[in-house]
């Protein structure tokens, strides 16, 4: 589970800084450790936390965010950001639900349409960023607004009720496959495939290269624009998958579905240790980040705190995660600088 990040992984550390490097390399493991400790504390006050039913419920809910967060991680690794994921999710969710409601397509057809729509929306982001050279934050803030507007335009005040979906369509949200909930299995499969691509393929290494040093990547002859375009396209595709999972999870879909989820998605990426300045981070991290946020939401309910605390705690978690990363990186830099002087 070593971090393939260029920022922290490419030097041999002195004895003084070695534990820091270990922590940094195992950034995902430390997140797991925090979850175990917090989980223990929550279990003391609410024993039902550790029940299989509760844990699988948390994991299923977190899977929706995790799939979108893994797409976001691909974009963030290239030193970009996609703020439009929630609008892509919402638009895909409504399109799929609406097609099924009107029997315009059968279930596989509607799912394929949803995936294709997500991919196209991601490609639009990619074109605006790479071809029109609009900074990613501006481009995706714009497309967030545009995609959501199209969603409103298509949906109007209509709401697709759960009853209009084909019988059994939402079963996937509750069914298991050899004891693993299907949603979790989907997230894990995407994580494994994505991680292999990131670690062991030319495209994967190019993503990190473009994100950690665009100038050097250009000198090396890496087609940066194509790489960034592909990252945005894949992010859109995964947001489409997340949108479909969203329909299966909630069943009732309207023009405002998935509003505000971009915060959870970006939070999962940041908490999962993906560097917002690009060049380092893993899909395992993004997945664990989403699980961590879902876990906190669940713990709040179990210890009887009002849901109103959730937003505030998400905010604190984001601030803590980004502070911890910065402190870690700075310590490592200091440790390696000391070594160079010697």
């Amino acid at each position, binding site marked *: 589970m070593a971090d393939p990040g260029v920022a922290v992984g490419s030097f041999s550390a002195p004895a003084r800084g070695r534990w820091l490097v270990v922590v940094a390399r195992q950034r995902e493991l430390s997140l797991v450790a925090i979850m175990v400790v917090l989980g223990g504390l929550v279990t003391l006050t609410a024993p039902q936390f550790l029940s299989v039913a509760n844990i699988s419920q948390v994991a299923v809910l977190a899977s929706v965010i995790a799939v979108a967060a893994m797409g976001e991680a691909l974009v963030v690794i290239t030193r970009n950001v996609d703020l439009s994921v929630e609008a892509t999710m919402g638009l895909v969710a409504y399109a799929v639900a609406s097609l099924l409601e009107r029997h315009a397509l059968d279930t596989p057809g509607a799912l394929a349409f949803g995936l294709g729509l997500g991919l196209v929306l991601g490609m639009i982001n990619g074109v605006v960023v790479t071809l029109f050279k609009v900074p990613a*934050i501006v481009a995706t803030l*714009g497309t967030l*607004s545009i995609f959501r507007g199209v969603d409103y335009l298509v949906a109007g005040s209509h709401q697709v009720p759960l009853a209009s979906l084909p019988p059994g369509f939402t079963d996937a949200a509750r069914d298991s496959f050899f004891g693993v909930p299907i949603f979790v299995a989907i997230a894990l499969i995407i994580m494994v495939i994505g991680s292999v691509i990131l670690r062991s393929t030319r495209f994967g290494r190019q993503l990190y290269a473009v994100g950690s040093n665009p100038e050097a990547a250009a000198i090396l002859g890496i087609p940066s624009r194509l790489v960034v375009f592909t990252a945005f396209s894949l992010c859109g595709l995964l947001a489409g998958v997340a949108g479909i999972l969203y329909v299966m999870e909630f069943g009732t879909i309207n023009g405002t579905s998935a509003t505000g989820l971009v915060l959870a998605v970006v939070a999962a990426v940041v908490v999962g240790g993906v560097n917002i300045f690009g060049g380092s981070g893993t899909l395992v991290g993004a997945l664990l980040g989403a699980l961590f946020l879902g876990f906190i939401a669940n713990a709040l309910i179990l210890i009887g705190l*009002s849901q109103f605390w959730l*937003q505030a705690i998400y905010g604190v978690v984001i601030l803590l995660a980004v502070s911890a990363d910065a402190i870690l990186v700075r310590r490592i830099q200091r440790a390696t600088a000391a070594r160079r002087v010697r």
Partner: protein
Amino acid sequence: MSATVASASPGRSWMALLGRWETLLVVAIAGLMVLGASLSPFFLTPGNFANLIAALMEVAIMALPMTLIIVAGEIDLSVESMAGLASSLLGFLWASGVPLGVAIPIVLLVGALGGLLNGLLVARGGLPSLVVTLGTLALFRGLALIVLGPRGVSNFPPAFTQLGFGHVPGTLIPWPFVIFLGLALILGIVLHRTWIGRQIYAIGKNTGAARFSGVRVVRVRAGLFVLSGLIAALAGIILTSRLSSARADAGAGMTLTVVTVVLLGGVNIFGGSGTIPGVVLAVIAVAVMQNALRLASVTVEVQSIALGLLLILSVVIPNFAHQAKSAIDRVRGGRPPPAGPVRRGEDVPA
């Protein structure tokens, strides 16, 4: 594109003026007004203008400190939540019997403190403002929900609701517009005519060089976030007054419009350039556009398509203009254009 032309060839200053982003905005506003007038005979009436400007004032007021922050190379996504926290806190204090004369200063102080939190984490902690203010975007909204919960407070005295709803006596000018113009004047002078403004541009253009020239980067940056928090709280108070209701979800979604207005005003997202007059013109342009769309019975939700397109076009058009200009220069055999991204809305040297 403006400054390069202006500095390269002072003899062609009329062309520089023509090429300025602000001029383009004025043309766009005029075009939208003609369009609006052709859509409805009521478009050009003073009453309609008062309405179209009043509905955008909270966004416009928050856009002013945002301009300074983006010029300094940072961003503050938390302003909408701070406006919500201000509304929520004001409602809570009023409902628990605190007179408004005491409650409003408390709310403004909380705004400044929230801004200080952003400022310390970004300026002193060296953390990316995008992530920090995304965190406080959630944090402030969460605090707003904790303070007031899902209820609304609406029994404010008429004197208070006059602030957001009323007009300057004898005219149709809404009070928030007066506040906006006052703030625009003050911040415009600070940004374009004082050493503080020069330092803000210096930080945005080249932080390292600014630091070595003796600019107190940490202090200026932190100060900008405090200002942003304070003014976002003020916008929250005005919003509460205009709607005669304090709610925890007040201002939700406004950050997008605030950032759109600032970038449309010609401010470079990477910092270092942009003007307050440009942003004031962008506020008017967006207000006119929204009003024209409303008269064409386009719903508020669908208007967001136009807003998003506008945001992207505000970067794409200058990019293409720059490319076209360098192509023309190449054909004429003139000097090659300077490399690097286009700088829009460059401030004019005093």
